């Protein structure tokens, strides 16, 4: 399949469709819940988180794909974790240097990307078995799928919670801000109902 150009295109296309929809890490596989719930009170932190995850995912997939021939089964997970935590440290230092306020708001959830199942899942399922280019496309697609899911939640929560989106008033000011949406309760309820909606959509299609 690797020599067949059409097969290659199919491989990339598959990776993109899988990442965004068919195997969307948050909405379909229900992985990486902790950041999904924690940073989606507003759209801005959600997008920052999404970008961080894309960065870490791409870098770790590149590294894992490059060293896949030298990996030994019993130290595999350890090597993945070390690679991931190195890139998470880079991302965290970058945020702290350039957007200190956002870094403070995200708190421990940036370093917690280390134990985000999505990244280790892609390292194990894709990067440790495929070439460089496929791994990068896969990482970009999965990261985009993650960011998409976070944005959906964040848009719902921010609009209902504050009536604003990116500081711009969306709902009429007479709308009473639904403060609970910005709290943990809102996170759990919104995610629950979004997953429920996903179930309805997929059932109607099949």
């Amino acid at each position, binding site marked *: 399949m690797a020599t067949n150009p059409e097969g290659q295109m199919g491989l990339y296309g598959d990776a993109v469709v899988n990442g965004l929809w068919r195997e969307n890490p948050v909405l379909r596989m*229900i*992985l990486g*819940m*902790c950041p999904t*719930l*924690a940073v989606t009170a507003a759209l801005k932190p959600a997008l920052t988180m999404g970008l961080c995850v894309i960065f870490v995912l791409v870098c770790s997939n590149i590294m894992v794909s490059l060293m896949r021939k030298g990996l030994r089964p019993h130290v595999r997970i*350890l090597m993945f*974790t*070390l690679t991931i*935590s*190195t890139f*998470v*440290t880079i991302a*965290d*230092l970058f945020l702290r240097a350039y957007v200190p306020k956002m870094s403070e708001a995200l*708190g*421990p959830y940036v*370093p*917690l990307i*280390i*134990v*985000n*199942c999505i990244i*280790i899942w892609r390292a194990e399922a894709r990067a440790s078995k495929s070439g460089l280019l496929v791994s990068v496309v896969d990482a970009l697609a999965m990261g985009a799928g993650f960011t998409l899911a976070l944005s959906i939640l964040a848009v719902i929560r921010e609009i209902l919670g504050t009536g604003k989106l990116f500081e711009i008033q969306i709902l009429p000011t007479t709308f009473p801000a639904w403060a*609970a949406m910005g*709290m*943990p*309760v*809102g*996170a*759990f*309820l919104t*995610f*629950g*109902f979004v*997953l*429920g*909606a996903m*179930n*309805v959509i997929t*059932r109607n299609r099949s």
Partner: protein
Amino acid sequence: MDTVYMLLTGFISVVLINNLVFTKFLGICPYIGVSGRIDMAFGMGLAVTFVMTLSGTLTWMIDHWLLIPLGLEVARYVAFIMVIAAAVQLVEMYVKRFFPSLYESFGIFLPLITTNCAILGLCLFLVIWGVGSLIEAVVLSFGGGIGFTIAICIMAGIRENLRMVDVPEALQGAPITLITAGLLALAFMGFAGMI
């Protein structure tokens, strides 16, 4: 007396008010995946509490006695995840050697704990909260584990009963679990005024 009072309020705060599951969203994955049966949830909770106390204490010691004096805060995350992985391995070997029957019941949970975000999350929160003394770090990490156990057991109890309830088809599985968790989080908000 002041220290005792401070430790007690810290413990209550981390168990109820700042519960790792309901207010910090940590350890949600096992919470959704495992908490179908109350005895398994309790086993998982105990294993997590044990590892959390151990790794919270160890990472605090490494952070304060090694990384900060040497100016190596940059290596904090790498060091923390290594300590947690090593602690889980040690616990696994120790339990297997000396308490084989306990190992049988813990068995599947122990390796999973390395990637439980509640453990790393708590170690990071100890840094963020600026915990100043070793005893405080021990008490807070133990409290974090107890809070996790309480959350996961309450959830397992509810889910055992949910099986007999007519849940709308679209909400079956993970969605209804999350909605239940949301209502529990609402209930736990009531503790906020305690201290």
